């Protein structure tokens, strides 16, 4: 296990290194300068500004400096907000994004498990049909359409929730619902398929035959075994939430990193874009690593094959 972990962490670092390298050189390819009023500045002024931001050095030196900084969590200075380090900008914004992302994940997956389990238990009845409709709608309706729908009906028309502000828990409800729809749908679908499979297996027959109650069979034998493979879709769901958050945070004016990403893209704030790309990849890598480790713990068969490789 320790060897496997070491290998995985090595790959994580390698991946991040490649991500940093590729984004750095991609950003160097971008047209335009960070100066807003280039025409008004004299040559010496431009040189001074370039020197201040380290842009006068050759590209390979800039790259090494950036790499050295990134390791220590320093992603340079934002172009958009003068004298604001990117790391400060992002650390103040990551909290709301994490909160909403985690809430959406937990809400979506738990409700998804319930919906999927009921669908599988009452197979081919109206319960199952409803569960299927919920999951197919959740997958098909883009999160930002859902966000605007929720904002309009629950926020504006009914006035149950604030429309676009950031404060306490009440402000996170609508974005959580909007982002949680896809995890809900995906996990409901997944759990239903798994559970239908499990319910027809021999050990369920045995559990029933030995006289266990219906809830006992479902809870102790069917549900637990159906949930193990669910860990594998947590990674893709995390990607989905990250993608969705960029637009949903914008719609609800949440001061998170998704909103910052869109803002930075629209204002050509390259250092912030780079920092965000690295943070997004880092978060995703960690999620994938954790889910792989968890899967190994929950399902011993994976661990054995992992060693054999």
């Amino acid at each position, binding site marked *: 296990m320790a060897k496997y972990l070491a290998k995985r962490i090595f790959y994580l670092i390698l991946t991040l290194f490649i991500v940093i390298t590729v984004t750095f050189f991609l950003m160097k390819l971008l047209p335009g300068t960070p100066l807003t009023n280039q025409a008004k500045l004299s040559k010496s002024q431009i040189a001074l500004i370039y020197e201040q931001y380290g842009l006068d050095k050759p590209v390979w030196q800039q790259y090494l400096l950036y790499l050295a900084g990134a390791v220590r969590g320093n992603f340079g200075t934002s172009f958009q907000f003068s004298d604001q380090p990117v790391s400060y900008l992002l650390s103040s914004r990551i909290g709301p994004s994490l909160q909403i992302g985690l809430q959406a994940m937990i809400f979506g997956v738990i409700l998804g498990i319930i919906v999927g389990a009921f669908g599988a238990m009452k197979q081919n009845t109206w319960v199952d049909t409803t569960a299927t409709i919920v999951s197919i709608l959740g997958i098909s309706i883009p999160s930002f*359409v859902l966000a*605007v729908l929720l904002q309009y009906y629950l926020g504006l028309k009914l006035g149950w929730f604030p429309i676009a502000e950031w404060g306490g828990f009440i402000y996170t409800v609508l974005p959580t619902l909007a982002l949680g729809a896809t995890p809900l749908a995906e996990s409901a679908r997944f759990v239903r398929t798994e559970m239908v499979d499990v319910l027809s297996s021999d050990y369920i027959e045995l559990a029933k035959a030995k006289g266990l109650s219906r809830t006992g069979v479902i809870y102790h034998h069917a549900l637990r075994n159906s949930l193990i493979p669910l860990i594998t879709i947590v990674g893709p769901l995390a990607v989905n939430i990250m993608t969705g958050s960029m637009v949903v945070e914008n719609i609800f004016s949440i001061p998170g990193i998704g909103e910052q990403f869109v803002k930075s893209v629209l204002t050509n704030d390259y250092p912030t874009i780079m920092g965000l790309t690295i943070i997004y*990849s880092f978060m995703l890598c960690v999620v994938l690593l954790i889910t792989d480790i968890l899967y190994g713990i929950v399902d011993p068969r994976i661990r054995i094959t992992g060693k054999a490789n």
Partner: protein
Amino acid sequence: MADTVKLPEDSFKRISSDDRANLDSEKIAAPSLTFAQDAWRRLKKNKGAWVSLIVLAIVFIMAFGSLVVSPHNPNAVNPSYANLPSKIPGVNINGFNGTLVQAGERVDAYKQAGASSKFYIMGTDYLGRDLFSRVLYGTRISLIIALVATLFDLTIGVTYGMFSGWKGGRIDTIMQRIIEIILSIPNLVVIVLLILILKPGMTSIIIAIALTSWVNMARLVRAQTMEIKEQEYILAARTLGERPMKIAFKHLLPNLSSVIIINTMFTIPNAIFFEATLSYIGIGISSPQASLGTLLNDGQKNFQFLPYQMWWPALILSIIMLAFNLLGDGLRDAFDPRTKE
């Protein structure tokens, strides 16, 4: 029970030994179906998939047919008819009869604009452009982007996956590592970066989506290739000295087709979703061109007062996504009946 069933005398006939000799017990009475015919038959039984197929056909015909016949010019600006709500002749339901609630009173917006004789099925936008024509136009652009991107993505993904799976060994390991690295950056981030470099526009969106979404296809094709290449008919072909290229096209590709078709059905809605998201953020298609995403973006600006401007594109977008997803599900069941119990 026994005497309730009365069968006619002539239902039974004694078989002579001659007849028995002529009977072929191995003969299959039903016509034998090819794989595609069998899948088609199963697909037709799936109501959701069948309806989706029809809906998609209608959407395609309308979106591309609007090149020839369009109710209005999607780019014709007419400020005096701006922000008219939807009006469908003969329908008198609030929301579809051209009336609006203004200062607490329901008024006929068409009469106010002096256009009582006209009607716009989905209303008009803030520049007085016919929303129905705009939606048709936007759907067309969205579909073109999705289809072209999917085509590229198909080519890259299938080639990459087949090569990786066929070669195996070290090459496979390296190619899989590359895929893992690509998978560890959220797709949308990569797409945004690529678009920034290529400058926003239809081509760069297509390239960006194509360059990022082939990974899934490559993984599935690789897994399937590794399974198929162990089959005896591949071994036979190799023993006979067939060139790898020919094996790939003649033996691998037909056997991969179901995986490829199913995955394509899920790639297309994904591409539509990415395009809509990009245009919605504001780095996708730029005006006067329209896509479903830009229409949503335009509609959202004053959706508090004129919600229909957002509902229509949102509805169409959701219907297309839903239809592709249902069709994909149906195709998966049709190609692989084992997945359905």
